[in-house]
């Protein structure tokens, strides 16, 4: 079993309130805020699928889809 | 039947309330009569002057309190001092010789019985003083039949104390009979 690889980082823009928690705690600095203050995956290739952003997101806006799922 | 208005008084713990409820319940359940029982509640129920009002009748009773009893039972001096003036003329005032020293004459039949002393001598347990008093009362005034009271006692009491209560009831009845 290899390291999990990201298939897609789903972020529901209409639910995201741009609090920045996911960005602050991402160990690989994958996420950023766009010009509307919504989170998006700026560097998806760096994602290690730890899913901490998904788990901590207070807006329940993030869904990390790994390749094996 | 003419309305029988009873006030039973004494100190909390002597069982006057229980006795009054047994009497009224016997009248209702086994003699088809109408009865209402009420009592003064409050902290005085422990040790103070307990009072229970019972009205027994063959017709509906609306006002449940007794203002002028035609039967008044006093088992303590305090209760006697407080209540003797309310006795209805021609009524029955029953007191216990150990607890009450009667002072003034009232316009009623005044009966003083050594109920406590007799209970202690013949039965040896003061808890049945109230049942002895009931016995005396029903022999002095035919309010209900002794069997009715016995049946209530059998329903309410644990089996091992029924005999003692039956003895107390009979003792009371004989105390009353002796006066006739």
């Amino acid at each position: 079993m290899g390291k999990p690889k990201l298939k897609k980082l789903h972020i529901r823009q209409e639910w995201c309130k741009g609090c920045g928690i996911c960005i602050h705690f991402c160990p690989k600095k994958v996420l950023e805020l766009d010009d509307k203050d919504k989170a998006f995956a700026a560097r998806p290739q760096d994602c290690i699928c730890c899913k901490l952003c998904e788990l901590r997101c207070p807006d329940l806006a993030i869904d990390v889809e790994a390749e094996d799922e | 039947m003419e309305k029988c208005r009873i006030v039973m008084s004494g100190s909390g713990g002597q069982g006057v309330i229980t006795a009054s409820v047994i009497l009224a319940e016997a009248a209702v359940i086994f003699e088809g009569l109408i009865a209402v029982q009420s009592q003064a509640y409050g902290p005085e129920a422990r040790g103070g002057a307990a009072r229970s009002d019972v009205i027994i009748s063959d017709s509906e009773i609306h006002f449940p309190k007794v203002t002028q009893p035609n039967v008044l039972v006093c088992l303590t001096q305090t209760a006697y001092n407080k209540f003797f003036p309310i006795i209805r003329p021609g009524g029955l005032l029953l007191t216990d010789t150990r607890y009450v020293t009667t002072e003034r004459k009232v316009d009623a039949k005044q009966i003083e019985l050594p109920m406590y002393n007799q209970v202690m001598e013949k039965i040896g347990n003061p808890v049945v003083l109230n049942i002895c008093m009931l016995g005396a009362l029903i022999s002095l005034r035919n309010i209900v039949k002794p069997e009715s009271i016995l049946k209530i006692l059998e329903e309410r009491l644990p089996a091992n104390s029924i005999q003692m209560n039956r003895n107390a009831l009979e003792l009371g009845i004989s105390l009353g009979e002796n006066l006739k």
Partner: protein
Amino acid sequence: MAIKDYLRERFFPHMWCPGCGHGTVLNCMLRAIENLALEKNDIVMVSGIGCSARISGYVDFHTLHTIHGRALAFATGVKMSRPDLNLIVPMGDGDALAIGGNHFIHAARRNIDITAIIMNNRIYGMTGGQFSPLTGYGKLATTAPYTNIDHAFDTVSLAIAAGASFVARTTTYHARQMTDIIQKAIQHKGFSVVEVLTQCPTYFGRKNKEGSAAEMMENYKNITTPIGSKKSQENPELIERGIFVEKEMPEYCSEYKKIIQKAVKGK
């Protein structure tokens, strides 16, 4: 079932402020329920009043949004009549421990099988930032403009003293631990208390200069430590987190079942 299936999505985005930790509690709680594969029809969520209480509106369970502080009393009625249901009662710190303090200690004492989640953000958020019983000495709030002189409860000690048979503490930073603890709390037969330190960046954070939501969460990492850790022994100021109590005790509904058996027999 994905956690989205437990949501009433039509009410999203939710009403909580950006960065409010309550959303994370909702998030982790649903994951715990998902891990346990509970049926939606078997869950009753009862809440009181306040920001925390709105959580019940967002989940697709049987939901009872009640009055301030009394959620546990309502939940007790539901649980006693339907012991087969899972009762989850999320409460704010004011809801649970100020106006509802009496119900909290008595539900704990009875050890009725209810999962109480105390979302402790140390402030009354819904009414705009007044101090709560968990705000703490020296902090600021709109009703403590010269600093707060009220001392805080220690929720965990209070729950233990009141007799809860499962008592735990975690934070929104420790999301995995929170999920795990809530899962165990729901499984536990008896009264379970989970205190979650959850940030209110809008009122508590701003009043007390604790920075952004992320910074407040960062702080939870720094001021807490696992129960009995070396760090804890070296620095007693640190707040311990983890499961403090997990014990088997006669549960209230089961005990009442025995009362019924006795009463029916003695009739």
